[in-house]
Each structure stands twice: as structure tokens, then as C-alpha cells.
């Protein structure tokens, strides 16, 4: 145990006043400010999320491999479809064809296949994440990507810089699959840890 300090009158006064100062400072921090700072902390932790990940090599479950292959095939089809569409749109004579811009059926189908996989993965994540550990943030990120995707699609329909946009759209879809995979893996780790804690308590 620590020896008690012998304080002079001056030190006693300082101590008393600083304790009062501490109390006032603590009350100064309003709930709003606390919440603002938490947002800052949370964002910084989000940026450094890799730091929190275990350094052991990750094993990607087979079901994710299949989905990745399906997504890649869909995206290839999307690229091919766009070029096919561009060729079809090239006028072969002097006759000017005026059409409402629309993605051809092949592209729509490929896009739909990719979206279906994403929808399925989102549903699975929501179903498993009953404690809302991961899902809200993941969904937020996916919504932002969806908005960006739709914007690029509109620009593509207006025939603006097709190749660059196609690449960006592919990257957008790839990123969404990647985010979902990482979220599921992280959720599995958290749930495994919680189960271990429960088992430990029951022992």
C-alpha cells in the first residue's frame, strides 16, 4: 500500500481546487459532444480495422469461392454484352435511329445474376447477425456503393466514357462481394468468441 503524502497548506489548497476543476470539466462535456467524439473514435477505428484482424492466414469457405466464380462470370458477360450493344448501336446507313437508351437483355441478365448473389448474401448476414454487430455498418457501405453504381449506369446509358465506366462498375460489384465476405468472416469470429465465453462461464 502507498504511503500517504504529507501535504503543505499550499498543496492542500491546490488539491482541493483542482478536484473542483476536474468535476467542472467532467460536466462541461455534454452528451452531444460525447456522441460527436465517439463518431470520431469510431471512424478512426474503422480506418484501422485491419489492425484488429488476427494475423493468421484466412481460409475462404468453398461457398464463397463458388459465389466469386459466379460473380466473375456474370461480370465478364456484362463486359461482353456492352461491346455487343455498342456494335448494334452503330448506324449502318445514313438513316438515324432514335431509341430510348436501355441496356440490352444480356447485360441486364448478367447484372441481375450478380445482384441476386449480393441479395442472398445480405439476407444471410442479416439473419445471422441478430445482435446487429456487423450488419448495419456493412449495409450502409453497400448502399453507398449501390448509389454510385446507379449513377455510373446512368452515365453509361448516355454513352459517356464507356470503357472507364464499365471498369468502375465491375470494381464496384467486386468490392461489394468483398465487403460481404469480410463481414461474414468477422461475424463468425465474434460469434465463436461469444460461444467460447459462454462455455467458459458454464464450466
Amino acid at each position: 500500500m502507498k504511503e500517504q503524502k504529507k501535504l503543505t497548506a499550499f498543496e492542500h489548497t491546490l488539491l482541493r481546487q483542482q478536484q473542483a476543476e476536474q468535476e467542472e470539466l467532467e460536466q462541461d462535456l455534454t452528451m452531444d459532444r460525447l456522441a460527436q467524439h465517439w463518431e470520431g473514435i469510431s471512424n478512426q477505428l474503422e480506418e484501422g480495422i485491419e489492425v484488429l484482424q488476427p494475423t493468421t492466414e484466412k481460409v475462404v469457405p468453398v461457398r464463397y469461392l463458388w459465389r466469386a466464380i459466379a460473380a466473375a462470370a456474370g461480370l465478364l458477360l456484362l463486359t461482353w454484352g456492352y461491346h455487343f450493344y455498342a456494335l448494334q448501336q452503330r448506324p449502318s446507313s445514313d438513316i438515324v435511329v432514335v431509341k430510348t437508351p436501355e441496356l440490352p437483355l444480356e447485360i441486364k441478365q448478367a447484372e441481375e445474376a450478380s445482384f441476386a448473389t449480393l441479395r442472398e448474401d445480405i439476407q444471410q448476414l442479416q439473419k445471422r447477425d441478430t445482435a446487429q454487430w456487423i450488419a448495419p455498418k456493412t449495409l450502409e457501405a453497400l448502399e453507398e456503393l449501390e448509389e454510385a453504381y446507379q449513377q455510373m449506369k446512368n452515365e453509361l446509358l448516355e454513352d459517356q466514357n464507356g470503357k472507364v465506366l464499365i471498369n468502375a462498375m465491375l470494381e464496384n460489384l467486386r468490392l461489394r462481394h468483398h465487403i460481404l465476405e469480410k463481414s461474414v468472416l468477422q461475424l463468425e469470429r465474434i460469434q465463436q468468441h461469444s460461444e467460447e465465453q459462454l462455455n467458459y462461464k458454464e464450466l
Partner: protein
Amino acid sequence: MTSLYNEPNALLIDRVKTGDRKAQYQLYQQYARAMYGVCGRLVGAGPLAEELLQDAFVRAFKNIHQYQQKAAFGAWLKQIVIRTVLNHLQKKSTTWLPLDALPQEPQAAPSYEEQFSFPSTIGRKEIQAGMQQLADGYRIILNLYLFEGYDHEEIAAILNISASTSKSQYSRAKKRLRGLLEQ
């Protein structure tokens, strides 16, 4: 065998160690105000103290695995807060005095006047103003010894100086503050 401190937040801290954001928020809510008080006394209330508070919590959560329950979580967290403030002052401030480079004063016994009298008319505002006029190093050492309750050995470890330097500089800091207040 080292016995573990009976930390009331042990389960919550275990959840924080898994990266659980809700648990982090609960822990933050419990300690944020007190830690803001520490920052505020060391650098003055305001945006800088708030910025350092954020940095300290980020640092604490990223290094949470280093908390081994050998002491209270609050004490561990406070050390991180103090170190964050010190790092900032050493990097940014021009008034940081390298404490171990200063000449050391012999430890004189306090005079009768010093021991038993101090003008009662001097209040908190004057003391705060005086504290803010002190060089950063003096203010830190006064806070650590007098208000945070560390002894000179502990301060020596935190500030990376010798215990005798800590004693000597504490004495100088007190004298300087008293001088400012009696002006």
C-alpha cells in the same frame, strides 16, 4: 503467481478485445468524462483536450490486448491518456522543458509559512490561470504528483526521468506557481 485485479468491467473489456463496437461505446461512455478532466487539467479545457481525448481512446482500443488486468482498467486508461498528452506536448509545444536537463535543486524542508499558511483569498480561477502560465513540464509534474496521486518513482517511469529529478522539479514547479499566485 500474479493475482488479477478484480476489475468490475472485465467481461465488457473481453468483448472490446473482440472488436465489439457496442462494448467499446459502453466503456467509452463510462470513462470519457473523467478522462476529459485529465486532459483538460493538463492542457486546458477546449478543442485540444477533446482531440487528445479522442486520440487516447483510439490508442486504448487498438492496444486493448495489452491490458492484462494487473490494475484497474481506469488506471491503465489514464496512463494512456497521460502518454497521449505528453507525446503531443513533446511534438508540438515550444514550452516543454526537458525535465532531466534542468539543474536539480536540493530538497529543503518546507518553511513554517509554506507548510501552514496560504492566502485563503486565492480561488480556483486564479489557481487555474497560474497553472496555465506554468511551463508544460511543471504543470504535468504537479498534476501527476498532487492530483493523480502518482509517487516520484511512478512519475519517473512515465516521464522517463529519474525519481530525484521528479522530486526536484516538483519542488520547483510548486515554488513557481506559488510565486505566480502571490504576485
